[in-house]
C-alpha cells in the first residue's frame, strides 16, 4: 500500500467512513440475522430515590445531636445486623422500615458512609449511576450490564427516569405505561390488540420473507460500512422485535396504582419474556428542603413498598432467584434542619443490595455521630479511621462489575473506573 493511499484510508477512518474489507467489518455485519433466544437472567433493577433520601430515616439511623426529630437514639430498631429508624408510627401509606427489614433484612446488604463527593443533583446522579464523576460519556451500570449480557434484546435496557446515559453501547428504552408495552409488543396489530391485526398471518410472513431477501441481496452489494451497519441493525431490530410478542402473556390485566409498581410490572414482564436485562426504576420528590420529615415519611415507605412489590411479583413470576436489586439515591440530607424544617444536600449516603450471591444481613461501612463518613479498609471491610479510605461510587461500581461478571468485558474496559488494586472492596458481596 503506497503512502498516499494509506493516508487516504486514515483520513477516511478519522471521519467515520472506513472501508468494506473482505473478512473484516463488512463480513461481520453481513452475518445472518436470527431472532435471539430469550435472555434468561440475571436481571438487574436499579431503584433510585431521586432528589436525595434521608438515610437517617432508613438504614443509617442517628437520633442524636438534633439529627432526627421523629425519634431518639434509644428508639432505634434492629433486625439481625441491621439498624434502622422506626417509621411505623409515622407512615401514612406504603411500607414501614419495620415491615421492610422483617421481610427482607436477611437478604439485604447495606453500605453506609458512601462518599458521593458532590452535593448537587446532576453530578451526584451521574456519579452514582455510572461510577464516574468527571465524564458525561460513561454508561450507567444498568446500561453497561445490558450491553454486555443482552445487546440483542429488544428492550435490553429499560429506564423510567434517573440518569440513564448509555455511552452508546446499548439502546435505551422508555416504556412509560403498561398499555405502551402492550402496543409495542404487538406492533403489527392496531393499538396492540392481537385481535385487530393490520395483516393476515400469511401476508405478514410474506412481508418478512421479502425483507429478508432484500437484506441478503443488499448485503452482497458494496456499501459504506456506516450505511451497511445501519441496514443490518434495522433488519436485526425488526427480526428481534418479534420476540416482544413473548411479553404479552405477562402483562397483568389490572394495572397497579402505585408509581413504582407500574414501572415494576413493565420491567418484570420484559424480564420474564426474556427481552430485557436491566431497568432503572425511579420515583422523585425526595429533595426535602422544606418539611423534611413529612416528605421523607411519605416517600421512604412508598419507595420500600415498591421494592417489596418487585420482589414479591418476581417470586410469583419465578424469576426472583435471578433478580439483582440495587437501591440508591444521588445524595443524602444534612444532619441539621434548616429554617423551613427541611434538610439540604449532603454528600454522604448509603446504598443497599439484594440478589443471588449477595450475602444478606450485613452492614458495611458507617457514618459517625455527626453523619460524616468513616474511612473503611477495603481489604477487611472494617471501619478504620487510620488506614481506611473513603469509599466512593467508583469503588462500588468496580465491585458491581465484578459481581455481574462483566469487569473484563471489552465494553467495561472501554470505560475504566480508575482506582488501584488496594482500593478494590474485597468480599463485599460475601
Amino acid at each position, binding site marked *: 500500500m503506497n503512502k498516499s493511499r494509506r493516508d487516504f484510508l486514515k483520513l477516511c477512518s478519522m471521519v467515520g467512513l472506513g472501508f468494506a474489507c473482505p473478512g473484516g467489518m463488512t463480513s461481520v455485519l453481513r452475518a445472518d440475522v436470527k431472532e435471539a433466544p430469550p435472555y434468561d437472567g440475571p436481571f438487574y433493577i436499579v431503584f433510585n430515590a431521586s432528589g436525595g433520601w434521608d438515610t437517617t430515616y432508613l438504614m443509617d439511623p442517628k437520633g442524636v445531636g438534633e439529627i432526627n426529630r421523629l425519634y431518639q437514639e434509644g428508639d432505634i430498631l434492629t433486625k439481625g445486623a441491621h439498624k434502622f429508624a422506626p417509621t411505623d408510627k409515622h407512615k401514612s401509606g406504603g411500607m414501614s422500615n419495620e415491615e421492610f427489614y422483617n421481610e427482607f433484612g436477611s437478604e439485604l446488604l447495606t453500605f453506609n458512609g458512601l462518599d458521593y463527593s458532590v452535593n448537587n443533583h446532576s453530578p451526584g446522579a451521574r456519579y452514582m449511576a455510572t461510577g464516574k464523576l468527571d465524564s458525561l460519556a460513561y454508561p450507567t451500570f444498568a446500561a453497561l450490564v445490558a450491553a454486555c449480557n443482552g445487546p440483542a434484546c429488544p428492550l435490553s435496557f429499560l429506564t423510567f427516569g434517573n440518569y440513564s446515559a448509555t455511552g452508546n453501547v446499548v439502546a435505551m428504552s422508555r416504556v412509560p405505561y403498561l398499555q405502551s408495552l402492550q402496543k409495542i409488543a404487538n406492533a403489527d396489530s392496531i393499538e396492540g390488540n392481537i385481535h385487530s391485526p393490520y*395483516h393476515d398471518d400469511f401476508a405478514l410472513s410474506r*412481508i418478512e420473507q421479502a*425483507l429478508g431477501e432484500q437484506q441478503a441481496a443488499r448485503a452482497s452489494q458494496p456499501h459504506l460500512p456506516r450505511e451497511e451497519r445501519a441496514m443490518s441493525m434495522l433488519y436485526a431490530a425488526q427480526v428481534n422485535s418479534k420476540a416482544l410478542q413473548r411479553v404479552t402473556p405477562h402483562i397483568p390485566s389490572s394495572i397497579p396504582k402505585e408509581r413504582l409498581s407500574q414501572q415494576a410490572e413493565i420491567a418484570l414482564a420484559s424480564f420474564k419474556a426474556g427481552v430485557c436485562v436491566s431497568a432503572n426504576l425511579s420515583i422523585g420528590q425526595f429533595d426535602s428542603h422544606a418539611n423534611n420529615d413529612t416528605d421523607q415519611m411519605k416517600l421512604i415507605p412508598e419507595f420500600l413498598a415498591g421494592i417489596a412489590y418487585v420482589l414479591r411479583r418476581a417470586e410469583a413470576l419465578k424469576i426472583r432467584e435471578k433478580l439483582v436489586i440495587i437501591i440508591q439515591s444521588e445524595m443524602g440530607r444534612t444532619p441539621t434542619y434548616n429554617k423551613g424544617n427541611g434538610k439540604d444536600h449532603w454528600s454522604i449516603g448509603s446504598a443497599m443490595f439484594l440478589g443471588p450471591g449477595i450475602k444478606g444481613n450485613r452492614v458495611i461501612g458507617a457514618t459517625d455521630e455527626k453523619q460524616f463518613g468513616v474511612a473503611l479498609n477495603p481489604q477487611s471491610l472494617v471501619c478504620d479511621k487510620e488506614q481506611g479510605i473513603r469509599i466512593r461510587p467508583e469503588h462500588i461500581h468496580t465491585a458491581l462489575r465484578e459481581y455481574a461478571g462483566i469487569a473484563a468485558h471489552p465494553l467495561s474496559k472501554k470505560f475504566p473506573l480508575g482506582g488501584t488494586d488496594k482500593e478494590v472492596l474485597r468480599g463485599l458481596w460475601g
Partner: protein
Amino acid sequence: MLPGASPEADTKIREAIVFLHQRVLGRNDTPQSAEVERTYQLFAGIVSDAAERGKMDPEEIYTCRQGLERPVADPKYTVRAWRAVVTSLLRQHEFLHE
C-alpha cells in the same frame, strides 16, 4: 388488476410499484429491476396465497376499514396485498434513514 392475468396487467402493477418505490423510498427503479421484481413477487405471492386458501373475507380487513360508509370490496385480496406492499416499503432502510 391481478398479477399474471395478462402482460398488460403485470405492466401496470410494475408501474405502480415503480411509482411507490419513488414516492416512499426515493428510488428510481426500472420496472424490470430486481428491487421491483421483489416487490412484485411479494404482491403476487400474497394474492396467490389468499386464492389458495379460499373463503377469504371479500372485503378489506375489518380493523382497517377506517370508518368508511361501506367496507372496501376486496374479492381477490388485492387491496390487502397492496397494503402489505406499502408496509414492507415503510419498513425499509431508505424510508427510515436519510
